[in-house]
């Protein structure tokens, strides 16, 4: 690395690629060559920096300059100014919204200040398609240590003592899971990586696989050695073509270097990894369903026990861990369990990656220590609510989680606190909602998802969720009654108690948590027939405020059904029986005379 004067790191994650980061890379390479600088400046396509809101991101080392929202045509200016003249391009720097100061160094940006990147340690730093760069950052050192020690139980003990818990949502202690699998004797065992990231709005697993695939491969080999498995399988969504491509490259390189295959590090340990593809079924994130899907069947879950550790893939003992869990393993071995367990809260150690999305200024991928508060995440890292609107709720845990209100903003985030608050950690989706989100509609949105994704095997989930959805639909259409609210509560409890797998047992959570935290809003829908957020179309009423209306006729001309009547220069009126609630008049009015009731 010493021979280059500058390193230009360009995000090649899915989000930035969608905003032409490919072209930016091409332009850099071409223009550097034209200027004869290709030997002085290295161009590196990295994984995700996390700050997707302001993508595409270009970072320049060694001065750590962080350029945002770079367009392919900006490349020339960056080369002329920054690379040749050593002057930063001010207009492409991040501007702190509070102080209006330009921040050149990402370390000083609010978005990064409170983050601690362990699982994402290499994403955005290394070229994921170059194994040497991973090795240069202590890659495969942990595997070497473990194989040299040659004591699986000692490694399992390290993971146990570190306090690492499953990052896929369940939060089961990883070390314990490995220990159980290691104790079941069999001629063949499997180490499985769950990369079926189905939670809509969560993309941390994808970013890890795109940005640092070797960390997962190394951890799977370590885990394989601990439980006595010589075969690893990665089950990944077919919707992630870039992650699949990078994984394939990484597996190939690891084989070439002898880090996968026979007799790794001459320890006598054999381990190799295959990729299996999902085909778009959320329930396949459940480990028994995932295993059936890998075997070429419908991804329907089965009752546990037998647990996969007893009878998993092809009826052999198998251990399933999530991508993010694996990404933590090599660091724990390298830095020690004491270091890892010093981060976080009493029962939740380490960090968690969250996908921050929704009505928030800084959408992106963040990694924070357990125990940070929602307020810090939303207002300091996330930069507050978009367009200066008011915070209403934060949804965590995806379709299995719940909505938390303002009163939980200062609760430290960890597995147990989120459960106690009526939500859950889940895989780490964190959706921020402002006052324009109707909570009944949000619950309906999640139920629609569950109904679609329910595999149909058990009755409570197949039929119960459908009934929940219909009842919510009735309420948002303005036909709900108070009895419906009781029905929602009772039915939810029954589904939770009786469904077969994790999907069904948690699917009523969005309903229950919104009823608990936003009961008034449900009441407004069923009693007053109003949607306070103004989202439910059927409950909307557009009226013209005669004091503000000057009779410009703009609304009447725009109304597609001719529901607006009135004389020129006199206040107009909307005929409610004709109104289709399309909102065109509301958008056309320049005098703030149309009100939504």
């Amino acid at each position, binding site marked *: 690395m010493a021979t280059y004067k500058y390193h230009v790191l360009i995000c090649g994650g*899915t*989000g930035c*690629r*969608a*905003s032409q980061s490919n072209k930016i890379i091409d332009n850099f390479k071409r223009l550097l060559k034209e200027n004869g600088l290709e030997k002085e400046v290295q161009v590196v396509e990295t994984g995700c920096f996390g700050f*997707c*809101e302001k*993508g595409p991101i270009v970072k320049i080392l060694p001065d750590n300059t962080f350029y945002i929202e770079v367009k392919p045509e900006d490349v020339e200016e960056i080369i002329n100014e920054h690379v040749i003249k050593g002057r930063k391009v001010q207009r492409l720097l991040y501007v702190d919204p509070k102080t209006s100061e330009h921040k050149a160094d990402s370390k000083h940006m609010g978005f990064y200040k409170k983050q601690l990147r362990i699982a994402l340690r290499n994403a955005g730093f290394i070229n994921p398609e170059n194994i040497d760069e991973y090795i240069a950052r202590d890659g495969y050192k942990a595997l070497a240590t473990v194989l040299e020690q040659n004591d699986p139980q000692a490694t399992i003990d390290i993971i146990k003592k570190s306090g690492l818990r499953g990052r896929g949502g369940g939060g089961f202690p990883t070390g314990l899971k490995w220990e159980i699998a290691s104790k079941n004797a069999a001629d063949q065992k499997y180490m499985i990586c769950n990369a079926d*990231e*189905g*939670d*809509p*709005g*969560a*993309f941390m697993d*994808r*970013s890890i696989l795109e940005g640092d695939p070797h960390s997962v491969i190394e951890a799977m080999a370590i885990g394989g050695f601990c439980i006595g498995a010589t075969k690893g399988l990665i089950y990944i969504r*077919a*919707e*992630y073509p870039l992650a699949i491509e990078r994984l394939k490259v990484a597996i190939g390189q690891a084989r070439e270097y002898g880090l996968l295959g026979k007799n790794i590090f001459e320890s006598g340990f054999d381990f190799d990894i295959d990729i*299996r*593809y*999902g*085909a*778009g*079924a*959320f329930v396949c994130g459940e480990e028994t369903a995932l295993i059936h*899907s890998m*075997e*070429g*069947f*419908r*991804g329907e879950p089965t009752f546990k026990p037998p647990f996969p550790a007893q009878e998993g893939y*092809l009826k052999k003992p198998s251990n399933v861990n999530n991508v993010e869990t694996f990404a933590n393993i090599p660091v724990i071995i390298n830095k020690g369990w004491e270091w890892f367990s010093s981060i976080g809260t009493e029962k939740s150690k380490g960090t968690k990656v969250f*996908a921050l*999305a*929704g*009505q928030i200024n800084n*959408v*992106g991928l963040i990694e924070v220590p357990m125990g940070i508060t929602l307020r810090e995440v939303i207002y300091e890292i996330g930069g507050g609510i978009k367009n200066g609107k008011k915070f209403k709720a934060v*949804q965590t845990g*995806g379709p299995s989680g719940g909505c938390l209100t303002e009163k939980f903003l200062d609760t430290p985030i960890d597995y147990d606190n989120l459960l106690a608050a009526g939500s859950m950690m889940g895989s780490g*989706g964190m*959706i*921020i*909602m402002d006052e324009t*989100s109707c909570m009944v509609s949000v619950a309906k*949105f999640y139920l629609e*998802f569950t109904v679609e994704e329910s*595999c149909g095997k058990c009755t409570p989930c197949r039929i119960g969720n459908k009934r929940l959805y219909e009842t919510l639909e009735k309420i948002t259409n303005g036909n709900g009654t108070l009895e419906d609210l009781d029905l929602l509560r009772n039915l939810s409890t029954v589904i939770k108690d009786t469904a077969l797998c994790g999907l069904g047992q948690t699917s009523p959570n969005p309903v229950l948590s919104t009823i608990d935290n936003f009961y008034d809003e449900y009441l407004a829908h069923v009693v007053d027939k109003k949607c306070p957020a103004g989202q439910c179309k059927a409950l909307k009423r557009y009226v013209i405020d005669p004091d503000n209306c000057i009779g410009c006729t703009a609304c009447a001309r725009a109304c597609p059904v001719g529901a607006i009547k009135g004389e020129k220069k006199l206040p107009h009126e909307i005929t409610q029986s004709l109104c289709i609630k399309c909102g065109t008049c509301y958008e056309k009015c320049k005098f703030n005379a149309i009100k939504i009731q």
Partner: protein
Amino acid sequence: MSSIKIKVKKEIIEKIEEICKSFDNQSGELINVLHKTQEYLGYLPAEAQEIIARALNISAARVYGVVSFYSFFSMKPKGKCPVSVCMGTACYVRGADKIVDEFKKVLNIAVGETDNDGVFSLASLRCVGACGLAPVVLVGDKVHGRLAADDVKHIVKEYREQFAKLAEA
């Protein structure tokens, strides 16, 4: 099984059988076989499923069961410009439902349908992971991000023109 006559071109049958063979005709590889077949044909018609069932020596019902279970597999041909609107939570919160409605209106088809000339088809999918660009629409492989309902007609127009040019050429 052998009495069933399948009305498909010979080369298609051979190609599908070749795909099955590349996975050693293992029934455990069914999902991979279906992925490859869909890549080749664009969709998975009943005939293709029967060919696969025969090659892997499993029932056509099992193949159909798997095809119908996973949303990635389709039994209907898609349009030449398949439009997929992301309905993940991040996109939903930023108004993806309005984008779907607009596409329905502009294309005059429902979700899951293909228009009469076979150019556009409309689908919704869950999270492509480009949440920073929400709301997001995929047309083919291309991602269109940060959309408003007004952008929809421009996108449709753009692809229609592109397609018309291709057809002329």
